[in-house]
């Protein structure tokens, strides 16, 4: 299905508003939208909400044979899926230009920057290494997919725990999560990408464009940086020409934004760790707020009561007289109370022995009536002592 076309009046209005430094949702030029990071129940599952853009990342691992050129390094595999539920323009299965571009950018940002220690993923050199696979699914497209995807991927990698491996001589044992606690990946640094969109041939710039702004932009500059102010990847698309000062200014803005986002990320990881340690329920279903606008609440509601009074009277009339007093509880052994004798057993086996047992119970009951320990009904207790 094709996406809604952009009308001329929308384009003109957006460009005019940007010239007056006004954005559609009232943000300032360098403001990010509200970001929310939540985790799923499994280790390595992370949801990132950037305004209305929603992205999910899942990390999984597997033991495979390593590449021949690098026998003692693990393998990292990245994949971004443009789900059709994100936008009507995305089709299932087809590799569109946007999907290729996003995949390439994410790989450059995370793999080429060597943020994960791949040598620690080696189990048996040349034979078995861990393959870490990061799948990023786009759930809703409201602009700036690259930033959301990179934040989700690196957060999921930080959150992930791989199974512990023990090596004894030639034997390799992979312990399940129940046997030994899974261990986290060793991550050197956290690269996060920041996107800048340019309008009117590079005159105006906006950080974190939403979907409408992306449609009217001339070009996009993506800078991936970590909090130590190291640039991991920088890419400019759209064919605009940028001045050196503009690129320097963007990198300074990016370093500020990356440190803010890294702080938020670490806080989210710490909160999740605390919640899991306390044994609280954590995960996707729990983190959804209960927004019930469809709960039915009425001040008064009519109830079908026409038959009620009659049926109640019928029941009362037909009911028998009150049942007689319950037999007083007896105490065969201290700590054990017995009310009544129970039913006659209907098995029909060993009748003689049962009769003898019952006679014994009656005797012991009478003897121990006086030696009454804690009972629930004091009324009965008084009666029992009264009888004796």
């Amino acid at each position, binding site marked *: 299905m094709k996406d809604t076309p952009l009308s001329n*009046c929308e384009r003109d209005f957006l460009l005019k508003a940007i010239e007056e430094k006004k954005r559609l949702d*009232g943000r300032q030029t360098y403001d990010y939208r509200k970001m929310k990071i939540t985790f799923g129940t499994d280790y390595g599952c992370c949801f990132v909400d950037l305004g209305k853009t929603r992205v999910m990342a899942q990390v999984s691992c597997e033991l495979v044979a390593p590449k021949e050129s690098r026998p003692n390094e693990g393998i990292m595999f990245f994949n971004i899926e443009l789900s059709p539920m994100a936008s009507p323009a995305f089709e299932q299965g087809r590799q569109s230009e946007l999907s290729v571009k996003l995949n390439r950018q994410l790989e450059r940002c995370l793999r080429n920057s060597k943020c994960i220690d791949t040598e620690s993923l080696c189990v048996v050199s040349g034979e078995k290494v861990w393959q870490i696979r990061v799948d990023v699914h786009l759930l809703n497209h409201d602009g700036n997919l690259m930033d959301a995807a990179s934040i989700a991927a690196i957060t999921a990698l930080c959150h992930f725990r791989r199974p512990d491996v023990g090596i004894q001589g030639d034997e390799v044992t992979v312990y399940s999560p129940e046997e030994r606690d899974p261990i986290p990946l060793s991550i050197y640094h956290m690269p996060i990408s920041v996107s800048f969109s340019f309008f009117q041939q590079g005159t105006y710039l906006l950080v974190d464009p939403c979907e409408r702004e992306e449609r009217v932009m001339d070009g996009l500059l993506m800078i991936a940086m970590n909090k130590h102010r190291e640039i991991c990847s920088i890419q400019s698309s759209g064919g605009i020409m940028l001045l050196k000062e503009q690129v320097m200014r963007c990198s300074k803005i990016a370093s500020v934004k990356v440190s803010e986002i890294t702080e938020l990320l670490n806080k989210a990881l710490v909160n999740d760790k605390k919640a899991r340690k306390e044994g609280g329920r954590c995960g996707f279903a729990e983190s959804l707020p209960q927004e019930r606008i469809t709960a039915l609440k009425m001040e008064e509601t009519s109830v079908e009561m026409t038959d009620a009074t009659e049926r109640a009277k019928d029941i009362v009339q037909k009911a028998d007289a009150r049942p007689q007093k319950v037999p007083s509880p007896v105490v065969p052994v201290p700590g054990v109370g017995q009310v009544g004798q129970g039913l006659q057993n209907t098995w029909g086996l060993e009748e003689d022995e049962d009769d003898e047992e019952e006679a014994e119970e009656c005797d012991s009951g009478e003897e121990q009536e006086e030696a009454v320990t804690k009972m629930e009904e004091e009324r009965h207790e008084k009666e029992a002592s009264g009888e004796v």
Partner: protein
Amino acid sequence: MFSSLKERTGEVLLPGDEFSFEAEDTISLAGPVKPEKVVCGPGLRRSGDRLLVCKSGVLRHKQPNMFWVDSQQRRYVPAKGETVIGIVTVKSGDVFKVDFGGSEQASLSYLAFEGSTKRNRPNVQVGDLVFSQFLIANQDMEPELVCIDGSGRANGMGVIGGGGLLFTVSLGLVRRLLSPHSEVRSDLQQLFPCELVVGMNGRLWAKASTVQQTLIISNLLQSCDTMTAQQRRALFRRVAQGAL
């Protein structure tokens, strides 16, 4: 059936609820009683001698005998006679293809504008907004739009001029804006002067004297969709005092 429908106006109905003809207990001796006619609107469907509810929502009544179910949705299904805002996507020969948010694009002939002839073509470009009404809108045929009414006059329809902002809201809000004594509209009138074109496919075009005011109106309308009347009035009052 009229009485049972009248009783339940204002209640929430679910698909599957039905209304059937009750057996008349009393025979009127005054004379032949005219059977009461009930006109079913959207959400109610007649099946044999029963009336079935096929959409969830609140049952509404309009004098003298019209009933319908007021439901909430964002996806527009074209209906004949409704005015919508469309975006021109293709200009091919004699016909424009217009996207209105439905499953397929509607066709709009160049002759369907006021004062247009074969020599005098209307000035419509790809990407323009047109305010038009449906001439043909059923599930079996391609929908067709026209910008003139039955007598050949534009009556407010046609290409929407430059400036202004297009945004989408839910269909329920659009119907509330277009109803005769709309509270939302009267609240909006007290803010600042603006031009507003309301399309029944959920698209609104707004234009005020400055960019800031236009942005305020679009954000207000998009957010007051799910607010109660009091919350909306409080929000509008805050804006009028210049808080936002």
